[in-house]
């Protein structure tokens, strides 16, 4: 694959890096926004037999253009099945068939737990966001979970304002002790780096091309370990990936610009 000669936006890089975590054959439930773009990008490139599910009851959609979210009928185009929440989050996810969840987050902690519910502002007021939706279900029940977010220091929290969806552990208790199946969060993909989340803590797996590892660590205000040899550099987007994002998956740049 040829590297792109033109530049890319940080969020395009995020989408490409997140797509890189999808494996061929994955059965994935994806949340609203960048997770949709990343999953579709993977399916159009290296993971053609991966299958997408949307929590509202859509199986295997193949949209040909952008959408305003998972409730936008444009996102359901080419779907195999229209069912309901109990089919996707019940039979597929709670039933143990879903191998991958992709979620965006407002805040993430070192265990890969995330907050999408509310933020306590400095003036003492509360800013409410989207809540859980199916996010808690996906993080609780998928084989592994991928978290995507912008790399802003305020988003990386040792202690979340609200723990909407659990990662690999909560308050020192492992998933199995909590009664949760699956591995939990395996990676946090931002617009600057890929963090690998393990039971031994968070590692800086790779920084995106042009990023300085030290600067990334500084912008990540919780304990992040670096393996001997240092972090890798994330593979840059290919021309084909950028073409797909710019002409098909997100031509208006709603999610990636």
């Amino acid at each position, binding site marked *: 694959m040829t590297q792109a000669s033109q530049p890319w936006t940080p969020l395009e890089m995020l989408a490409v890096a997140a797509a890189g975590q999808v494996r061929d054959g994955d059965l994935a439930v994806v949340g609203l926004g960048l997770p949709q773009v990343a999953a579709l990008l993977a399916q159009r490139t290296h993971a053609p037999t991966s299958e997408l599910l949307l929590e509202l009851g859509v199986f295997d959609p193949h949209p040909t253009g952008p959408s*305003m979210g998972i*409730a936008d009928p444009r996102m359901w185009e080419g779907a195999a099945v229209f069912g309901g929440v*109990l089919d996707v989050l019940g039979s597929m996810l709670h039933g143990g068939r879903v191998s991958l969840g992709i979620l965006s987050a407002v805040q993430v902690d070192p265990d890969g737990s995330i907050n999408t519910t509310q933020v306590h502002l400095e003036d003492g007021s509360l800013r*409410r*966001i989207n*809540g859980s939706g*199916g*996010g*808690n279900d996906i993080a609780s029940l998928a084989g592994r979970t991928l978290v995507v977010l912008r790399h802003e220091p305020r988003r990386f929290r040792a202690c979340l304002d609200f723990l909407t969806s659990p990662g690999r552990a909560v308050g020192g208790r492992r998933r199995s002790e909590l*009664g949760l199946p699956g591995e939990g969060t395996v990676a946090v993909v931002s617009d600057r780096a890929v963090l690998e989340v393990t039971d031994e803590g968070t590692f800086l797996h790779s920084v995106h091309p042009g990023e300085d590892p030290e600067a990334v660590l500084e912008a990540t205000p919780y304990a992040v370990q670096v393996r001997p040899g240092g972090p890798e550099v994330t593979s840059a987007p290919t021309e084909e990936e950028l073409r797909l994002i710019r002409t098909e998956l997100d031509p208006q740049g709603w999610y990636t610009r």
Partner: protein
Amino acid sequence: MSKVVSLSEAMASIEDGSHVGLTGFAITRNAVAAALELTRAKRRHLRLTQVIVGLETDLLVGAGCVDRLVYSGGSLDRFGLVHAVNRAIATGTLQIEEYSTLALTLRLAAGSLGLPFVPTRSMLGSSLLDNLRAAGEIVEQTDPFTGSPVLVMSPVRPDVAIVHADTCDEEGNATIAGPRWSLRETALAAARVIVTTERVVLRGTIPPERVVVPGTVVSAVTEVPRGASPTALPGHYDYDRAWLEAHVEATKEGGERFRRYLEGMLEARAVHP
């Protein structure tokens, strides 16, 4: 036996303080005409249960009709947040009980099926669970078969559910195109269902396999073309982008601005009974 009535008649059967199940999802298939009729009638102290909230709930909360919301989150997708709901929560004028999508759908399914309770592995370890302990609708137990920790939830049974259907026969047998999220569980959990629909058709014209809400549970049917607009109705009409954007602006600012927007909406959608 025909159950067809006017919109105002159907909505007048919902009393102040009722527990209402709503079945839209974010920007799609919201029972907007029904919600506006409830605001017009100045219905108060409603308790709403809706798995994913969207425009209809944001209108009802913004208009001051709602005391309590049982839900699992929601937004207007990329158009924006449900600002009226979020502000009412932040300022304490709206009480909430917050679940995950699956957990609340299972509670409604239990209500629908007459199950005395329903277990789940969702929500374990989360702040959702911490907050729900006080509501009394959840018990932490051990699975008697495997010994694993598990949550056991009570059923939900709203007094009435509102569904906006594509077509519906005069006895209430209703079709729903596209994915059905938690619509069916919410409808069947309720003691009765009010159906607003794009088109009332004769009994016998809908293939029985296509009926999603059985007329057996329906108390009233009202024909309201474009009754879900400005949200989308798959196969019928798209969401109204300008209107949704106006909604987000009006709810973001709130106060007088929201009141003017709501009045404009009520005028534009005046009922002709």
